[in-house]
């Protein structure tokens, strides 16, 4: 019990916050940088995971389990999002034979 407390205390919370911000920024950067829809979906997963890690870090430092339950629900939403996103991608590949996100502008007019 004491060991776990000291072990978690050893790493300041700021380090987790900075790590999560770096991961989130990499995700945003990837979305802006790539045009492949499947890589953009992966970057969305990366951003969701950085938020999950931040939730867990705050939950561990506050000793509040509600944060970890939230992470559980975020995982549910991420799984749903991937299933729908990938089926949209399959449909896009079938219709325009490409996964370039710039071709998804048919709703514009």
């Amino acid at each position, binding site marked *: 019990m004491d060991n776990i407390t000291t072990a978690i205390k050893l790493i300041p919370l700021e380090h987790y*916050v900075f790590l999560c911000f770096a991961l989130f920024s990499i995700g945003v950067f990837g979305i802006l940088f790539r045009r492949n829809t499947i890589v953009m979906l992966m*970057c969305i997963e990366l951003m969701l995971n950085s938020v999950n890690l931040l939730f867990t870090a705050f939950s561990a430092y506050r000793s509040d389990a509600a944060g970890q339950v939230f992470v559980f629900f975020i995982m549910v939403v991420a799984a749903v999002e991937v299933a729908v996103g990938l089926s949209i991608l399959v449909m896009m590949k079938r219709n325009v034979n490409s996964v370039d996100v710039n071709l998804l502008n048919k709703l514009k007019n």
Partner: protein
Amino acid sequence: MIFLFYLLSGVALLSALMVVFSRSPINSVIHLIICFLAIAGHYILLNAQFLAVVHIIVYTGAIMVLFLFVIMLLNLNKENEPHKKLYTKLAAIISGGMLLLVLTGAVKSVALIPFNEKFDSQIGLVGNFGKILFNEFMLPFEASSVLFLSAIIGAMILGKKEKITNNE
């Protein structure tokens, strides 16, 4: 302990960068799996054991396999992605860096919450987690089942082959 934290952080950040810069989507998926395993290691460091196991099973076991399955089904591994223009790439780099700068600057100027001295080492374990999930969070839990159902129906409708109708 500190060494483990920095090692896992380094692996996570490097593989996250490799996800963005890999040429082929398969390499991106492999690097994302490495990144997720490092994040699962962070969960174990934070004593969130249930989340670590669920993270490995759901993310690296289900979601990433779904990604790989779609990539191989559609034969997307060809590296024929058209290049963006240079100024677009530059704008992406600058805006990503600015976002990181603003976020870290915002955190630097606030005092984060102190460590809770009444530490409870049981909060990440399955028993305690289940008690909270099925008492306080019962309604969101049931609502997420409806979300899953709608996602299943949506994915099936989207994946169905469209009939070509020439009514006009």
